[in-house]
């Protein structure tokens, strides 16, 4: 940092943290983007036209795969969903699914 000179060991650690968190300081830089709460896609908290069925009552016309809903319930929703217990028994359930929209077919089958 340029105008705050770290003197003790804690200040040096704080400086390292600040640089790793915000990057080195550049003149006129914008403040870092504010962290916003993450609303899971397809959850009842937001209007998502793809939720569960399409306008014809089927799943063919959804704007995203039904598995995406499932996956969002798993990853971030507070609502208890019908997904495997990924904390204790099936921690690797989604290990092959790097991106839900692309790799949802790789989500493991689980036989409890």
């Amino acid at each position, binding site marked *: 940092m340029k105008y*705050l*000179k770290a003197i003790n060991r804690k200040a040096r650690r704080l400086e390292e943290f600040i640089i790793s968190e915000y990057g080195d300081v550049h003149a006129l*830089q914008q403040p870092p983007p504010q962290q916003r709460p993450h609303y899971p896609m397809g959850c009842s908290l937001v209007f998502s036209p793809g939720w569960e069925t399409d306008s014809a009552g089927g799943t063919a016309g959804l704007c995203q795969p039904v598995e995406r809903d499932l996956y969002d319930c798993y990853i971030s929703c507070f609502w208890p969903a019908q997904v495997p217990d990924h904390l204790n028994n099936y921690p690797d359930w989604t290990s092959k699914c790097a991106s839900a929209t692309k790799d949802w077919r790789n989500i493991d089958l689980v036989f409890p």
Partner: protein
Amino acid sequence: MSTYRQGEFHSFKAAGIDYLYLAPSAAVFALEGPARSIIDLLDDRELSGEEIIRELAPQGYSVAEIAEALDELQQSHAIVRDNPVAPPPLQLPQQPFPLQTLVLNVTNQCNLSCQYCYEYGEDRIAAPEGKTRFMSQETAHRAVDFLLEQSPGRRVVHLTFFGGETLLNFKVVKSTIEYARKRAAEAGKYIDFSLTTNATLLTSEIIDFLAENHVGVTISIDGPKEYNDRFRVFPGGKGSYDVIAPKIKELLRARRSRPIGARVTLTSQVVDVKRIFRHLIEEMGFDEVGFAPVTTSPARLYAINSKGLDTVLEQFTELADEYLDHALRDELFGFSNVSDTLQEIHNGVSKAYPCGAGLGLLGVSPSGDIGLCHRFVDSPAGALGHIETGIDRRRQSEFLRRGHINNKYDCQTCWARPLCSGGCYHEAYVRYGDTSHANLHYCDWIRGWSDVCLRIYGEIAARNPGFLDRFDERKAI
């Protein structure tokens, strides 16, 4: 409109440099250029970024420089914007916490009758009635096993012998050191030893044993004869100085590796810190001298009142300045109150607890009962189990929850809390009947002393920074 204001810090000046000591992070930063001007500008008011730029423009800073300084100050929490910074969450230490130090009160008996003694004086909290007065060899050896078992992951552990008068039970001290060495080697650990004594019972044989076994020794002594003998007397009233002085000199001559320290208790009648220091260092030859005010209820005649504390602070400050002169010449100066505080400042210690009592350090009574520390053994207020049955985890957790700095309401707005964390549990218990109470009668003193030590630190950091390398090793609690 979004505004900036000062965060939580203590500002101080040393060697012509403006420093900030941030709370609660305990980081020390030097302010330069626009950062210093921004801190000054926000003294007692809130300003928007635009207002700050407008006010500082006449000082010749560009908008880019001011914006950069604002970022740096905000990211380190020296200034805050809009919402207050959330306090760090209350995290209790992992349980079970590995032990580091065990203090064995090998006896609660003493051959002196110091009026101010917390073990026997008017403010005593121990209730050892009906229990053994001398620790047996079996109990002491069992305590060593307990320390080795309860310190998983630690390579080095410490065993401290305490009393009463420790040397009244020297036989057990000696056999315990031999036993502990053997057991520690078997367990793949290193164990070191220290001992506190009033020096009255030192003999050539004991002195040789202590030197050969690298036992760190602390002598309780209150200075030259006229001060020491005010309180440190035998039961008949005779002063102890003439007995201990030659023995201490012999001990100091025999020392080999570990420094020998003096520990002085300050009372209303004994506050002449400089004179005591000179006597103990220059005339007696101690390596280090540490001072602590007597722990007592305020009603006692020997309790130090706030005027007395001011005198102590003045003299501490003068000695601290001498410490600085020595440090600038790369010389040591055995005033441990300064060196201990500098160590904590240098490492940026921000304490959740004032000391390791009840956590990494425990006291053991002669009968094997565990207490928070040596001052709480055999006291119902600090009982934490027995070495045979183990640590009372429920009581320990409750103590740690209540004693956590986040739960000390009075400390939440104090910039010195990273260093003080509310102060000694025993002091608090004697004063307020509650181990987790902040020691409010010391607050001004602690802030005054912290400021003195920060200024000394700032001077050394600017003028002889290499001296501070010696503090790099963090002294673990």
